[in-house]
């Protein structure tokens, strides 16, 4: 099970790198924001998986909860901001 978790962790890290490519090379500003949400959600899964790998899940799960809350607040704030300033894409 442990080697399986290592493999899944590396796989999801590669998917996160794909999201980071879209953050850097996005066509519009909204593409970059939506790719940032993908990176944030994948980072949440990575934190939980790393907690299971290191057998420290009771510590890492609290970090994951705080990370999920911060990610949600950031995305809602960016959406409201670009709604108000009417950024031309």
């Amino acid at each position, binding site marked *: 099970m442990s080697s399986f978790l290592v493999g*899944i962790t590396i796989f999801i890290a590669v998917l996160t790198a794909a999201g980071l490519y879209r953050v850097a090379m996005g066509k519009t500003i909204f593409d970059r*924001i939506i790719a940032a949400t993908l990176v944030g959600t994948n980072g949440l*899964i990575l934190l*939980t998986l790393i907690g299971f790998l290191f057998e420290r899940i009771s510590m890492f799960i609290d970090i994951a909860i705080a990370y999920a809350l911060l990610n949600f607040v950031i995305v*809602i704030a960016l*959406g409201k901001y670009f709604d108000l300033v009417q950024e031309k*894409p």
Partner: protein
Amino acid sequence: MVVLAIVLVVGGAFFLTVSAIGLLRLPDFYARVHAVGKSETLGTILVLSGLAVYNGWELSTVKVLFIMIFVLIANPTATHAISRAALRSGLAPWTRKKRPENKDRKGTEAE
């Protein structure tokens, strides 16, 4: 129990792969929002439920369930807010300009 956890995690990893490929390959912002908003939520919930099944019944499992419920609420809300902001700021959905019936419709050509 371990077999069920492995099946759930692999299924979630499949949906996360679909989401990442859709983010890279789909032609338009709205199509990419469609890929990220739904597949990402389902993949996250499947992976976390697999980890909860693997963990057994203790306090960390309850926290994993809290994260699942929060992602289920927050991720569609965030994608809805971003796509609404994009639509209000005038980002037009793409059309195929090569077809004759779409010649004078507003919209950007696909990349």
